[in-house]
């Protein structure tokens, strides 16, 4: 049975800091709240759903599609909006079977791989096996990591355009292709979460540009981190142009889908480590804040979309700036990191920020705990974060 729009109301209540009838549930609404394809397949089996290969909707993390029947079985309240293209630059079409560690899954036709001498699986940008591979899954691994392809660059003559190749105005066909999935997502009665791409500033997962055949500019992760300190004018020039392009895209997307989207996932740049941060709050305010604020301001002025920010780790120190920039939602609320005690977070920010996550400890309890510990670990943190706000994944 498909859910009524009680699901969407539930999510909107939580997003508006009103008391929902229960904590809304998200499995698979965004690329940062997704579930691995092997888990999706296992859940289908657990619920006795039709046996069929699960589609991979995000090849980097090997995330499996939560289809309607599984979403209903799980009581999911959020539905994602499938993207037209993967990070690896190929389109989600012409699905074919692929064997992943003994499990039959479905991948796009241009998901083309080879296996190297160590048994590692290599994945190619835009499905072009004549280009250098851009993703590697170690033998027996669960997902792909970016292969760093750093071309030589002259530090004295860096051109920001080189780091902007992947941030371009969306082609008309991409804009046109967004409207139908939004309508389909709305028809589920669930809240609609979308990611339109191009709004992640310096997301370290995206810096290597796995979708480009021959990326230029700064693509090495260490070089990028160094540049955040030593080449700030260059980083500003990239972010400024990226922001301008993203605003143009958002305006065109909004013209096509209106307020059919409830939540827009904007950026996954991680600012936290386990015990500290990747930069100071002052650096955040100088380097990221103006661009986040420009996007969130436009969204709030012109749409009913809520702005979703992801950052792992110890990030409480950034919350005031996140709120000031206009983010409505923070994910994943890594309660195991330093300074992320759920009760304190709720007391300090609960009226101003929606906690989308904060469930079970994914570093200790989920992978190493017993079933009882997993059952107990999530709800304990959720109780602390709840009280009229808080979404679980």
């Amino acid at each position: 049975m498909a859910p009524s729009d009680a699901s969407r109301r539930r999510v909107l209540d939580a997003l508006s800091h009103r008391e929902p009838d229960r904590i809304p549930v998200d499995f698979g609404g965004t690329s940062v709240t997704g579930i691995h394809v092997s888990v999706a397949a296992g859940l289908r089996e657990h619920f006795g759903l039709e046996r069929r290969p699960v589609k991979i909707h995000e090849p980097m993390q090997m995330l499996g599609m939560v289809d309607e029947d599984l979403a209903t079985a799980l009581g999911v309240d959020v539905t994602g909006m499938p993207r037209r293209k993967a990070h690896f630059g190929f389109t989600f079409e012409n699905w074919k079977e692929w064997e992943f560690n003994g499990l039959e899954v479905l991948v796009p036709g241009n998901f083309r791989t080879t296996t190297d001498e160590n048994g590692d699986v290599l994945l190619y940008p835009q499905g072009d096996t004549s280009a250098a591979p851009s993703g590697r899954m170690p033998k027996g691994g669960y997902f792909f990591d970016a292969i760093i392809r750093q071309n030589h660059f002259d530090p004295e003559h860096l051109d920001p355009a080189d780091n902007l190749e992947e941030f371009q105005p969306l082609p008309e066909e991409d804009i046109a292709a967004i409207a139908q999935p939004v309508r389909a997502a709305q028809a589920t009665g669930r809240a609609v979460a979308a990611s339109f791409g191009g709004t992640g500033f310096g997301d370290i997962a995206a810096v290597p540009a796995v979708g480009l055949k021959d990326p230029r500019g700064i693509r090495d992760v260490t070089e990028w981190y160094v540049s955040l300190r030593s080449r700030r004018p260059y980083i500003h020039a990239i972010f400024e142009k990226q922001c301008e392009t993203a605003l143009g895209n958002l305006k065109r997307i909004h013209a096509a889908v209106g307020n059919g989207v409830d939540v827009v996932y904007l950026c996954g740049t991680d600012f936290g480590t386990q015990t500290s941060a990747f930069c100071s709050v002052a650096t955040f305010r100088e380097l990221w804040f103006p661009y986040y604020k420009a996007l969130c301001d436009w969204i709030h002025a012109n749409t009913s979309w809520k702005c979703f920010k992801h950052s792992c780790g110890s990030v409480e120190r950034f919350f005031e700036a996140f709120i000031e920039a206009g983010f409505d939602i923070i994910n994943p609320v890594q309660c195991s990191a330093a300074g992320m005690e759920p009760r304190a977070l709720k007391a300090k920010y609960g009226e101003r920020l929606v906690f989308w996550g904060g469930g079970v400890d994914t570093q200790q309890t989920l992978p190493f705990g017993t079933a009882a510990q997993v059952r107990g670990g999530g709800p304990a943190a959720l109780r602390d974060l709840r009280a009229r706000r808080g979404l679980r994944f």
Partner: protein
Amino acid sequence: MPELQKLYDAVLNGDQKTAVAVTQEALAAGVSPMELITNYMVPAMDKVGSLFECEEYFVPELLLSARAMKGSLELLRPLLAASGAEPAGRVVIGTVKGDLHDIGKNLVASMLEGAGFEVTDLGADVPAEKFIAAIEEKKANVVALSALLTVTMPAMRTTIEALKQAGVREKVKVMVGGAPVTQQFAEEIGADGYSDNASAAVGLARKLVA
């Protein structure tokens, strides 16, 4: 004679060009490599570590200082080898099998080098047999294992088991680290030490070889 305090400042400020230039001038003026390391570079990296611990420095600053320090060390290393000077310890470091993440590991390696350790960096996705071969070849007294993923943490345990099987476990101290790794996990798998950041890893290594 160059102003050697500039070497300290260059490492502290992550200025590789100046660090290399001052090192070249100092060597040309007859300053001994050990003096440069002991009196300027190690103190500078110690200061970098303490600034990191008190959150004045973050990952980018750490990387820049490490880069400056390495620029100088590249000039000094051949001279040190020729002089037969003993390092603070010999460390073999790598990210365990199945894990391709190396930034944290690289930071620890750099901080250890900056503290006067001889560091053999095996890279990422390192099988146990490679650690074993490097321990034997480099006569290491510390092995540092890194893992970023919960799914690769078990490879730390199997690596330590392999060290035992190969009969080299007693020759080395094993230290572990990485985002999901904890003190409790380190104890469970029989590691000798755990550190939750690159700066503290230096203190741990010093303690382990003392």
